[in-house]
């Protein structure tokens, strides 16, 4: 048997399912092809790791509770130094949390008032406008009553041939089709309501 083994035979060899003449043939072939030996070694290592993971009793549900309790126990075990004098770390922790909340509140307020243009988010009448190109600026004119809503774009340089009509057969729909395929491939993440 000097023929090259097919994928099925190689897979069976890696899984240790061969015996007799087939096994001898594969071993002889593998000895001349060290990449196969490496592949088998990798497969066995991976299999071993998977078995190890499956056999470990990982306390997911209690993991964080356990970590917190250990932390509390360690902190409790540390004797207090000085009656009332607090450390810099303790002082820091006292004002850090309120300061963080204050920063978040200020950031949120600034975000809602943001009117700058180009590659930024605008919030006017609950509609957000984002320009992908920082050179393109957008201004939103809200349409109250019967007036239409208008987004005025500046800095968008249309290419000269962008609007030149072409025959239907010349129309390059590949870009659109590619996006459609991409969308189809992520249907699992599409909205559901």
């Amino acid at each position, binding site marked *: 048997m000097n023929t090259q083994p097919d994928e099925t035979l190689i897979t069976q060899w890696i899984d240790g399912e061969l015996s007799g003449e087939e096994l001898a043939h594969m071993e002889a072939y593998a000895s001349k092809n060290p990449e196969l030996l490496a592949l088998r070694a990798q497969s066995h290592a991976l299999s071993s790791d998977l078995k190890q993971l499956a056999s470990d009793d990982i306390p997911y549900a209690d993991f964080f509770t356990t970590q917190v309790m250990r932390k509390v126990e360690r902190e409790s075990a540390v004797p207090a130094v000085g009656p009332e004098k607090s450390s810099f770390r303790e002082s820091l922790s006292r004002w850090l949390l309120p300061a963080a909340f204050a920063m978040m509140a200020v950031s949120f307020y600034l975000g809602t008032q943001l009117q700058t243009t180009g590659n930024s988010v605008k919030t006017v009448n609950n509609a957000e406008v984002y320009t992908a190109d920082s050179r393109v600026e957008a201004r939103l*004119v809200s349409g109250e009553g019967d007036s239409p809503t208008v*987004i005025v774009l500046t800095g968008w340089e249309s290419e000269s041939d962008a609007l030149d009509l072409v025959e239907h057969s010349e129309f390059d729909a590949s870009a659109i089709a590619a996006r459609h395929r991409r969308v189809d491939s992520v249907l699992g993440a599409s909205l559901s309501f």
Partner: protein
Amino acid sequence: MKQIVTLICLLLSLPVIAEDKADPGKEEVGQLEVSLIYASSSESARGEAVSVEIEKKLRKTDSLDFAHYRLLGSDEQGILRSYLFWATPVKSKKPIMVSFQPVGAAQSTSIQLDLELWQGTKKILKTDPTLQLKKPLYILGPAWLDGRIIISVELLSLK
């Protein structure tokens, strides 16, 4: 090893199996029309004249007030319940396209959409307007010839 390969094959075939069944996400919840309008101060033979109704709507806003409006093309597409879809009003080498997908359930006279404006493979704009029936969203786009291109996005109907 065999089990892993079988599992992978099964997972890969799931989308195909699922697609065969009726997909409520493909339910059409409305109709959207995207149009390209050439607005200019001088007369042009490009495209065709816009309707009186559209011209009236355009003239209501200062930023869209031009002497002449010509319709270059329009594309009417269904709004699918939970799928992204595209409208291409003018077929060109680098077409201006609009993608749209509902953000939530449609109301009686309005719907919020995730809306993106593209030129060819380049994204220009992303927004999430709530479109009202018969009240278009206009985007004043790039300069072209002696005027500007206006992209009109109008909710035609809801189901």
